[in-house]
């Protein structure tokens, strides 16, 4: 990261970040890229710390590293112990590794604990122009700040711990432009699901996506985080939104943000990373926001998605034999038939949370639907805030009471039923409306059936016991109290 970009040929935000982070080598081939921030969690780090120790290497920059416990933590009261001894041992090793390397850790009991992709933004740790990595594919979330943020494997976690750098090759760029105004009841989640449905789960492979257009500009930071979160589900390396006034406003006053005159300097530098007028992308996809509707996935990957008013496709709609077989397997796993209307699908469970939709705005959106209603008698619904900070803010607004009065469970923060590594899992055959990001087989529990939706769609499904078009029930999000 340099202090300010100089003018020249128009460049994309991605290209500016890449070129300005090369510690060694040539930007047109594989080069050593400096990493400004490394986020760490329990599931993908133990082997990396072990590797470091085996080679006698040290953590180069504990001050650019932050660890958190999120993936396996139970969401019941924090005073109760972690029931799974193997998970408890993994958490213990993270604490021990962080202590030995002097890496700050937000443990189970920390007041800033939360899902790794939720806590960074809250603290102001993610700023435009930065390079950010984490041993987790949904690190793409953090591109919402006009940063280059992507997931890495454990070997690369080890390299970043040891060298604060990674060997990277330049990516191609994909512009996804969403112009116009999102209709009421249609959210960033629906925008993202529509995009994946359009480009496919492998459609953005090898690219860094930049979301542009008036509908993207109109999104809040939280909406942009949701949008960038799902970029990985289209196969992209990373997704980002160039910094603008919304980004700068969000960062003002955050714990890790600069203050006073330095903030002005920083803000100017942040903006200089935005894509230049006239910069060229390798590919462009254009989407009309006005035509977007709420979406629901019906299959076993996020590209198997339909409009809420639509139906599951017919097998004859698939072009290749492999695709047809894949749809047959998906429908069999999901216990659904071709051509079924989405609104006829009933659910047993509802999960509102995750790094996709576990932030305050998401909870407000869900609460606006839940308020005064009652969870359907055949449904069990839970709300898991993305972080302790989100949980406190939601409680201060009374959202917890809206949920609990309507019959939703209100839990402690963590990844929870997004991947079911803690006690929150679907039983075999149970069907869930989930605000998370992956509907893969068994993701939320062996045999569990996941339908991805927005927070308001999930809340509506909880009340009605089946999917309903939230646009029919829409109420304005609850205004914050006070």
């Amino acid at each position: 990261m340099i202090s300010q970009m100089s003018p020249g040929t128009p460049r994309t935000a991605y290209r500016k970040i890449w070129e300005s982070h090369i510690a060694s080598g040539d930007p047109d081939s594989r080069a050593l890229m400096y990493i400004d921030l490394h986020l760490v969690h329990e599931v993908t780090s133990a082997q990396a710390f072990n590797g470091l120790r085996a080679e006698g290497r040290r953590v180069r920059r504990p001050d650019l590293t932050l660890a958190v416990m999120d993936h396996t933590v139970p969401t019941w009261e924090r005073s109760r112990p972690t029931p799974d001894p193997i998970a408890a041992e993994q958490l213990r090793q993270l604490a021990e590794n962080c202590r030995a390397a002097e890496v700050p850790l937000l443990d189970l009991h920390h007041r800033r604990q939360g899902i790794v992709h939720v806590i960074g933004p809250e603290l102001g740790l993610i700023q435009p122009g930065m390079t950010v990595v984490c041993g987790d594919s949904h690190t793409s979330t953090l591109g919402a700040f006009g940063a280059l943020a992507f997931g890495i494997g454990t070997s690369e976690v080890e390299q970043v711990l040891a060298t604060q750098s990674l060997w990277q090759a330049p990516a191609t760029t994909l512009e996804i432009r969403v112009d116009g105004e999102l209709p009421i009841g249609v959210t960033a989640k629906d925008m993202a699901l529509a995009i994946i449905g359009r480009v496919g789960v492998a459609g953005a492979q090898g690219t860094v996506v930049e979301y542009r257009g008036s509908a993207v500009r109109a999104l809040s930071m939280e909406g942009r985080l949701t949008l960038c979160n799902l970029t990985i589900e289209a196969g992209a390396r990373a997704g980002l939104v160039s910094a603008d006034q919304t980004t700068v406003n969000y960062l003002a006053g955050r714990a890790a943000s600069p203050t006073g005159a330095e903030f002005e300097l920083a803000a100017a530098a942040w903006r200089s990373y935005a894509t230049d007028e006239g910069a060229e992308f390798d590919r462009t996809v254009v989407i009309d926001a006005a035509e977007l509707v709420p979406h629901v996935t019906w299959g076993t990957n996020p590209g198997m998605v339909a409009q809420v008013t639509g139906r599951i496709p017919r097998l004859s709609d698939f072009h290749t034999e492999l695709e047809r077989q894949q749809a047959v397997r998906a429908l069999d796993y999901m216990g659904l038939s071709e051509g079924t209307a989405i609104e006829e699908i009933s659910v047993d469970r509802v999960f509102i949370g995750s790094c996709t939709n576990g932030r305050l705005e998401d909870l407000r959106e869900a609460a606006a639907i839940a308020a005064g209603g009652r969870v359907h008698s055949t449904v069990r619904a839970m709300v898991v805030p993305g972080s302790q900070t989100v949980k406190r803010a939601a409680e201060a607004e009374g959202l917890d009471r809206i949920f609990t009065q309507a019959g939703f469970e209100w839990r402690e923060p963590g990844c929870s039923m997004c991947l079911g590594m803690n006690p929150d899992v679907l039983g075999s055959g149970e069907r869930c409306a989930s605000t998370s990001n992956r509907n893969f087989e068994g993701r939320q529990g062996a045999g569990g059936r996941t339908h991805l939706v927005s927070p308001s769609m999930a809340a509506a499904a909880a009340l009605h016991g089946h999917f309903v078009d939230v646009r029919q029930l829409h109420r304005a999000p609850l205004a914050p109290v006070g």
Partner: protein
Amino acid sequence: MEAFTVHEGLCAALSRNDVDTDQIIPKQFLKRTDRDSYGDAGFFSWRYDEAGNPRADFQLNDPAYQGASILVTGNNFGCGSSREHAVWALTGMGFRAVIAPSFADIFAANSLQNGFLPVQLSPTLVAQLRERAERRDGYRLAIDLRDQQVRDGGGVIAEFVIDPFWRECLLSGRDPIAMALSREEGIAAFEATRPRWSPRTTTAGLFS
């Protein structure tokens, strides 16, 4: 890291697109903290029924594929989670290489880090290779990283492309971390140019 020059072995077909890493290694195995206990866990839900018996309808359970070391599969293999455990599961099952029309980026990077070679070939060619493996009659391939060729008994089938950096690392068994450490001067010089306001996680009061 594990070196790779040439590998010759039996091919097994996994005739599916978009095989995600949640299937290659389900989450219940991600609580372990080692790198080499995942062979039995690979494709767990597809491979075993609820009672723990091998499912007859899962391709890789086919006795004809016993001892296979080259996986031939569909598009977008390894999509989803960044879990490197997926590669550890595949190598634990005895695979040394995987051939597909395309790979998810993080999975491909993780594979290379472990000397497990992702070989990308055209969809038509991969479909042909898959068909040959599906005949279950001992179809074998040799994958040669030196001349970037895939060969079978009949000769050269295809040349494949691989990033020169990784080709070099794999042929020599050189460790990317050691290579980065040898660029210490560049890293330190870069650090000196970072702006003063760049966030630090150790700043006092950050988490209050």
